[in-house]
Structures are given as structure tokens and as C-alpha cells.
């Protein structure tokens, strides 16, 4: 059997009826006991653990938990986060009776409430005591919940929360399957739509989950290999054979990097970032699928994407969905409806530009906690440029894709496809100069970019 066909068949094992039937026979009693309600209850139990662990983990770097007032403050933070969740659930389940201003812009109201709290934390003088510590901890911990509470409100807006159990919403608000500020699997509406209702569907979902977990292990192995062989990471057993290529974040503030080294670093960073994101996403979605939520994977072969917009769809699916649902669609349905091009441009700028920047700003502890313009300013300039360039790239790519629609056409030749993929790699590799977490300022990043083309 040709290797390509074998790989494809192995990749689709979870869809093979014989394999699914064998898994059902093997897991029979366990599958029968794991009813949807029990699976949800298990995740809700895990959520209670996350409800305590997550806020504390989020606040540890920024807030002094080791101080005498630490334990009381920690308890207040956990409680504060939980009360916020309960309040949003209450609002979502009585959505129709909320004030008109909140009903028309529920997400704006949610974020306004958060920023009101942040403003209080800025205004209240720094001091010891559990109250001051708890306030600081809360503003650091809440961004993890913000987008999840956003999905809860969105569900309320669609009239779907009234009949649901609070415990079911805890699944994604405090995800025991893991996650970042981005809700992998989105909210309960999306999870429910992809939930296995029969033993066979559960078996298929679990096999698909196992496949992702195996892929994640392979990617983690590749990352370890890359760390040693490419970066010469001292912790790796392979480091003595390593090339010792500097990391991009180290190269950006330095000068005199050779042209070839800089280009190599850019493409290697792209590969590293994709593998890392795919490994983490596969672990999270893999576990979700084991519990019967057969949702899309987070990363799906972005390095084979033939266009910028396709790469953006496949690279970090749940972040893209977050930007689309909270920024793109609301802008698209409200603004510039008589001008199709301007309409798409404005919505793209709102999502990939403003929404992207805002999302990352919420992750800046130094900004959320103490509004430090000296550190946030340079970051904002580089990240803002990145978001603007990304928005323009996505918009132009969308326009180009749209112009190709309508008529059935033969698939592009292999050469055309390779050329398109190389273009996408180069675009995102160059863009990473402005997104990379580094001490380098905008000017240093610009110098690095220009040096790639021989301009020094």
C-alpha cells in the first residue's frame, strides 16, 4: 500500500466502522455508564477544582500571596470570580428582563463592568491588607473568565440559558480539560451541538480524541528534538549536536545577525510556534473529545494553507472564532452595510486589528494591574503594527478568495500550490517580528526586518 494512502487510512481510523465497533465492544460497559449527564457531571466536578486553582495560579506572579494576608485574599479572589460567574449566569438566564442598554450591547456591558473594576484597582492606593490584595488578584484573574462569560451572555441573548443547568455552564467557565484565556470548544451552545448522544458517537469521539493525544505526543517529541538540535537547548540530550540557532526574541534586539541566520530563524520560529500551539490544542481538544464533545480541533495543518485567510482559519481556530463572534460579526451586521468592501474591511479591522490587540492587552499584567505606560507603550506600538498588518493581509486575502469564487475550476497545479504556501509562510514569518515576545522596541524590530532585505 502506498505510504500516503496508509497515512491517510491511519488518520481516519476513528471513522472506520470496524474500528469504532471494536472500541465499543472493548469499552462497552464503561461507554454505557458514561451517559452525557454523567460526563457533564464529571467535568463539573473538575470545574470546582479549577475554580480554586485557576484564579490563584493567575494571580501568583503579580500579587504577594506569601504575605500574611495572602490566604484571606486568595479566598476572596476565588469567591469574587465565582460571584462574577453567578452574576453573569443570572443575567444570561433573565436576559429579556435586563435593561435595554445591556440587552443591545451585552458584551460591551460585560467589559465595561470589568474595566470599572480595573479603574477602582488603579485608583485605590497600593496597600497591604486582604482587600487591596484581593482587588489586584481579581483584575488579574478575571481575564481568564471574560470571554467565557461572553459566550454565556451570548447564549442568554439567544434564549438558550433559561432551560440549562448552572453546573453545565461551569464546564467551559472553569475548564477541567485545560485552556488559556481563549475558550477552546467555545461555550455550552457549541459544545452541546457536538456532544455525542449515542454509544457509537461517543466511541467515535473518543477515538478522535485519542488520535489528537497521540499527535500531541508526537509534536511534543518533535519540539524536544528541535529544542536540542536547532536551538542547542542545554536541557536537551541532543544539545551537543545542536546548531545553536539563537531564538528570534534574542535576535531582535541584537545587531549584526547574518542575513541567512535571520531568515532561518524566522521560518524555524514559525514551525516552532505552529507545533507548540498544535500540541497544546490537541491535548485540550483530545480530552474534550474523550468526554464526548467532538468539536473541531484547534490547529489543522496551517502550514499547508494556500492563502493568508486559510492559514488564519486553521492556525488557532478558537482564537479566530472568538475574534469573529465578538468583533467581526457585530461590526459586519451593523456598519457600512451599503458598501460590501468597506463592510468587510471594517469588520476585519475590528477583529484581527482591534479585537486582537485588546485580547492581548488584557493579558498584560503590568497594564491591567498598574497602567505602566513605559512598558506598555513600546509593546503597544509593535503589537499594534502587527495587528494592522495582519488585518490588511487577511482583508486582501479574503478579497482575492472572493474573486475566485463562483465557477468550478480545476485544482491548482502542484507548483502553484507550493508557491502560494511559500508566500503564506513568508507573510506570517515576517509578521512574527512584531508579535514575538521580546525586549526589542519597534525600531529594533524594524531594523531587523530591513536587514532581511539587505538594508542596514
Amino acid at each position, binding site marked *: 500500500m502506498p505510504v500516503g494512502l496508509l497515512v491517510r487510512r491511519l488518520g481516519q481510523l476513528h471513522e472506520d466502522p470496524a474500528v469504532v465497533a471494536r472500541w465499543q465492544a472493548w469499552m462497552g460497559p464503561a461507554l454505557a455508564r458514561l451517559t452525557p449527564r454523567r460526563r457533564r457531571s464529571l467535568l463539573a466536578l473538575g470545574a470546582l477544582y479549577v475554580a480554586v486553582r485557576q484564579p490563584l495560579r493567575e494571580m501568583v506572579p503579580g500579587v504577594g500571596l506569601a504575605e500574611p494576608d495572602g490566604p484571606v485574599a486568595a479566598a476572596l479572589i476565588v469567591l469574587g470570580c465565582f460571584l462574577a460567574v453567578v452574576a453573569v449566569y443570572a443575567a444570561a438566564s433573565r436576559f429579556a428582563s435586563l435593561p435595554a442598554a445591556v440587552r443591545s450591547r451585552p458584551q460591551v456591558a460585560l467589559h465595561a463592568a470589568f474595566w470599572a473594576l480595573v479603574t477602582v484597582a488603579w485608583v485605590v492606593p497600593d496597600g497591604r491588607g486582604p482587600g487591596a490584595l484581593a482587588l489586584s488578584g481579581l483584575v488579574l484573574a478575571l481575564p481568564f473568565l471574560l470571554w467565557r462569560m461572553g459566550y454565556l451572555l451570548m447564549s442568554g441573548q439567544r434564549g438558550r440559558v433559561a432551560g440549562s443547568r448552572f453546573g453545565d455552564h461551569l464546564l467551559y467557565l472553569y475548564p477541567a480539560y485545560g485552556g488559556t484565556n481563549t475558550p477552546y470548544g467555545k461555550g455550552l451552545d457549541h459544545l452541546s451541538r457536538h456532544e455525542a448522544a449515542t454509544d457509537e458517537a461517543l466511541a467515535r469521539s473518543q477515538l478522535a480524541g485519542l488520535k489528537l493525544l497521540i499527535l500531541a505526543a508526537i509534536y511534543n517529541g518533535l519540539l524536544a528534538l528541535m529544542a536540542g538540535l536547532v536551538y542547542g537547548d542545554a536541557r536537551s540530550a541532543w544539545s551537543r549536536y545542536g546548531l545553536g540557532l539563537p531564538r528570534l526574541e534574542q535576535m531582535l534586539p541584537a545587531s549584526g545577525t547574518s542575513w541567512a541566520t535571520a531568515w532561518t530563524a524566522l521560518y524555524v520560529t514559525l514551525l516552532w510556534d505552529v507545533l507548540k500551539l498544535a500540541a497544546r490544542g490537541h491535548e485540550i481538544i483530545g480530552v474534550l473529545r474523550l468526554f464526548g464533545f467532538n468539536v473541531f480541533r484547534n490547529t489543522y495543518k496551517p502550514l499547508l494553507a494556500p492563502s493568508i485567510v486559510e492559514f488564519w*482559519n486553521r492556525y488557532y481556530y478558537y482564537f479566530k472564532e472568538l475574534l469573529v463572534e465578538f468583533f467581526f460579526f457585530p461590526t459586519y451586521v451593523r456598519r457600512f452595510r451599503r458598501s460590501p468592501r468597506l463592510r468587510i474591511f471594517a469588520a476585519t479591522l475590528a477583529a484581527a486589528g482591534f479585537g486582537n490587540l485588546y485580547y492581548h492587552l488584557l493579558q498584560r499584567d503590568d497594564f491591567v494591574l498598574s497602567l505602566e505606560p513605559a512598558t506598555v507603550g513600546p509593546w503597544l506600538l509593535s503589537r499594534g503594527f502587527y495587528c494592522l498588518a495582519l488585518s490588511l493581509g487577511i482583508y486582501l486575502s479574503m478579497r482575492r478568495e472572493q474573486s*475566485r469564487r463562483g465557477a468550478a475550476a480545476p485544482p491548482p497545479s502542484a507548483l502553484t500550490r507550493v508557491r502560494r504556501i511559500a508566500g503564506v509562510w513568508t507573510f506570517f514569518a515576517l509578521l512574527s517580528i512584531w508579535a514575538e515576545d521580546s525586549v526589542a522596541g519597534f525600531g529594533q524590530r524594524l531594523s531587523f526586518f530591513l536587514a532581511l532585505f539587505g538594508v542596514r
Partner: protein
Amino acid sequence: MRDAHRARLLEFLRTIQKPDQPLDAVAETDSLIEAGLIDSLALLEIVAFLEEQYRIDFAETGLEPDQLTSVSGILDLIEREGRA
């Protein structure tokens, strides 16, 4: 009436299909995105089509992308919100 809407919708979907994924035979409840027949970009064009042809105001009703990923979902929306 639903048949007329379906014919009109399918005619429109053919104008936005992916070039290498012809929309020949599609079950009404199939997810067009999962089947690879359209992508998220096409959703925008479906929204514009529904606004223009059926005067559905998504700013008023809210936009739920999952409603627009199958022919039956779109037809249900037309029957519920359409004004043409």
C-alpha cells in the same frame, strides 16, 4: 414556499462555492462547512444575500453562524425572519 426558497438559495450557493468543491449534491441538513463545500468567508456572503433578498436584519436578530451552515438552517431562518 420552502421549495422556492431552497431553489433560490441553492442557486445563490453555487455562485459562492469553493472553486475545487462543486456544490452538486448536498443533503439539506449537512453542514456545508464541515463538508468542505463553503468556508467562513462564504458565511459573509450568505448574510449579505439574506439581508438583500429576504430583508433579514441581523443587527436586530443577532447573528448565529451555526444557523447558517446548513441549507435547512438557512431555510428555517428565512421562514422565521424573512420578509420577502
